[in-house]
């Protein structure tokens, strides 16, 4: 295996990890505030469709991004209304959002574009360009470091860089700001926040709104950067994988980066090496494609050590006494 192959796999790891990472951080904000969000998948899917649709119609990818974020935040608001204001079951509310997105995106796509539940192929300004970082071309021929810079670090859409920047940003918000302290507290013991005179409901809505924003970016990235247009069920379970990555990451931003890169890597390997001939037998392509999902099951079965979720996770806050 030459350096180039390795770089290609890693390059694709970065691309594939980005939506996972954004969704994972979305889940992190939400769950750290005590709101389980199984609806990451649905929000991403809805955002993917609306961003592709708006981009296709207007030819403006930025408008598409705005539309994606808007619909995702709107779905977050629904989740918040059901599970925070009306203290409904957070899992059921999330599942409902997933079903809603899964059905509606295809139906609306068919109605608007009549292309079998797809949006038209995005071209030109309807899609995010890859950024070529400064000096990438010049340094390309420097041995080893040149290709790494050119292939791996340079040449992604701006959303990839935004996604990775969100890791330190999330860490900083959570652990260095007043907002973060309150957010973490509300997921551990909302009564403590309430008696300290801070609105539990306000904090939790803020958290799900951020989750909506991040899912919106993740969905837009899928449809307008990674792919060129929306296809039916294009999230392919990434929302659930992001949840698994979140548990694997023990609800910490930097660990989230690592676990998302791992999942991205497995997807990249699955795509790059469709058949691996081990001599004795050939590993079937289906197995390679299934790798991330197999890892998900292993992680969720708790084989990777004890992960302690935020203590008030999943419980609506009811004032006592």
């Amino acid at each position: 295996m030459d350096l180039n192959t390795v770089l290609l796999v890693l390059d694709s790891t970065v691309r594939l990890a980005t939506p996972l990472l954004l969704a994972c951080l979305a889940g992190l904000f939400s769950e750290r505030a005590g709101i389980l969000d199984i609806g990451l998948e649905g929000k991403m899917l809805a955002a993917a469709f609306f961003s592709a649709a708006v981009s296709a119609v207007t030819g403006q990818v930025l408008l598409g991004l705005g539309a994606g974020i808007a619909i995702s935040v709107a779905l977050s608001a629904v989740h918040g209304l059901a599970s925070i204001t009306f203290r409904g079951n957070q899992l059921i509310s999330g599942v409902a959002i997933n079903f809603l997105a899964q059905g509606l995106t295809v139906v609306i796509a068919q109605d608007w574009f009549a292309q079998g539940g797809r949006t038209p192929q995005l071209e030109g300004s309807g899609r995010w360009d890859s950024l070529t970082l400064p000096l990438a071309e010049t340094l390309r021929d420097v041995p080893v470091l040149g290709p790494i810079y050119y292939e791996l670090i340079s040449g992604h859409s701006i959303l990839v860089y935004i996604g990775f920047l969100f890791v330190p940003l999330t860490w900083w918000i959570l652990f260095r700001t007043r907002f973060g302290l309150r957010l973490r507290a509300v997921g551990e013991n909302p009564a403590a926040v309430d008696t300290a005179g801070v609105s539990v409901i306000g904090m939790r809505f803020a958290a799900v709104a951020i989750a909506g924003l991040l899912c919106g970016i993740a969905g837009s990235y899928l449809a307008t950067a990674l792919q060129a247009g929306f296809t039916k069920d294009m999230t392919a379970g990434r929302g659930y994988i992001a949840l698994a990555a979140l548990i694997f990451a023990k609800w910490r931003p930097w660990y989230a980066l690592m676990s998302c890169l791992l999942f991205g890597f497995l997807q990249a390997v699955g795509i790059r090496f469709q058949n691996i001939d081990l001599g004795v037998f050939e590993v079937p392509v289906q197995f390679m494609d299934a790798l991330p999902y197999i890892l998900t099951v292993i992680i969720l079965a708790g084989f990777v050590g004890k992960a302690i979720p935020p203590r008030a996770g999943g419980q609506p806050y009811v004032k006592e006494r």
Partner: protein
Amino acid sequence: MSETPAIELKGISKAFGPVQANKDISIRVMPGTIHGIIGENGAGKSTLMSILYGFYKADAGEIFISGKKTEIPDSQAAITAGIGMVFQHFKLVQNFTVLENVVLGAEDSGLLKPSLSRARGELKKLAEEYELNVDPDAVIDDIGVGMQQRVEILKALYRGADILILDEPTGVLTPAEADHLFRILEGLKREGKTIILITHKLREIMEVTDTVSVMRRGEMTATVKTEDTNPSELAELMVGRKVLLRVEKTPAQPKQAIVEVRNLNVTDEKGVHRVKDVSFDVRAGEILGIAGVAGNGQSELLEVLGGYEVATGSVKINGQEIDLTGAKSDGRSRRARGISHVPEDRQREGLIMDFHAWENIAFGYHHDPAYQSGILMNNATIRQVCQDKMERFDVRPPDPNLLAKSFSGGNQQKIVLAREIERDPDLLLVGQPTRGVDIGAIEFIHQEIVRLRDKGKAILLVSVELDEIMGLADRIAVMFDGRIMGERLPSETSEQELGLLMAGITDTDRTHDHSEVEAQLAERHGAAGKEA
């Protein structure tokens, strides 16, 4: 006194549906005093304080803080008005540090750093002023309940509270920790802070308060100077009739050993060694009381004998070994051997709260042929049995068709006691028989336990209330960190001595000052387990 009261309530009323929780309550508390509010469960103390802290809105009435009429619609307003509250169940974030908990909600700016460093300095000052020593970087999970309570007080002081309300603050403390708390309160009082102490313990009221108000059924029945009253008068005001504060009983006439426990060891699922080499006997016709701070292995001991925790060692009932593990170690086989169990947590282990009283009366004994009719349960009989037991145990209201959760704590406990005592067991296990139970019902429950003893039965009593152990037990064993630290006779010991044993100090001849005991306690808290 011509001074303006620090806090004055005028005509506060609050109803929850048909229940009048507070009826026209007026109260004046002078600055720099400790004011006690005493009353039974459900007398409306907590409702009143929740109104003061902005949790509930009063239907009628006015609140004056330092003479100024103040509206308190939420906790933030209460904090702004200078009111701090230490809840019975602490409102701390368990995996945050002390510093983070203190700062939460009272941060100076969007960034944490300046707030945290200011708080660190502030805490140091408060610690020196009021004996409120807490390591600011300790995580709440790792510190004991006495320490956690100090964090709650620090939280209030950090927010500039002039009026501090403490709701049942000593429920979870050892006697030494409680003494420390009272010294802190005295210090705060000297600095001119106003303290409201809510409790149901008469002794605490007598010990630390300047004035005391008594509440009964939502009404304020009296406000008196503490020095002008006495415990039995207060008890009478609380209950509305004369109450026996002492348990009436004759000396025990112990006979043969009913239960012989030898080298009992329990390790829980987390691998923590909870009970360590415990051995004791309980004889027919005596009450063995196990004293100790919650979480020192008493619960596990009861659970082993009750059949739902596994252990190693040996336990004999009437001379015959019982299984401590495996299929024959469960509640049903224990009951078959003559062991009845009144669990510590009646709402989780003693009753099913959403089931009717008559169903609860049958639980555990539902295999009794008398309750069967072919393959079906004979519900009519069970209802009748329940009715009879409820009348004998003075359960109010005596209605078998009510859900367990609709009874008050004392009446729930009476249902459990009725079920277990009426089975005429050889050994009765009783955990915290009067936790959350009114004074009137306490009297009754104690009498029933003594009556069973006088029938020649063995009773193992576990309680964190020293008063209860001292009054009820014929012999006292003290547990600390899973071990029995020593046995004493109630007539030959004192609360101080038991308190030291509860803190793990066996060498009681040595003179100890408080700080030394505290230091030892703090050190051992980790090992002693953290139940709360």
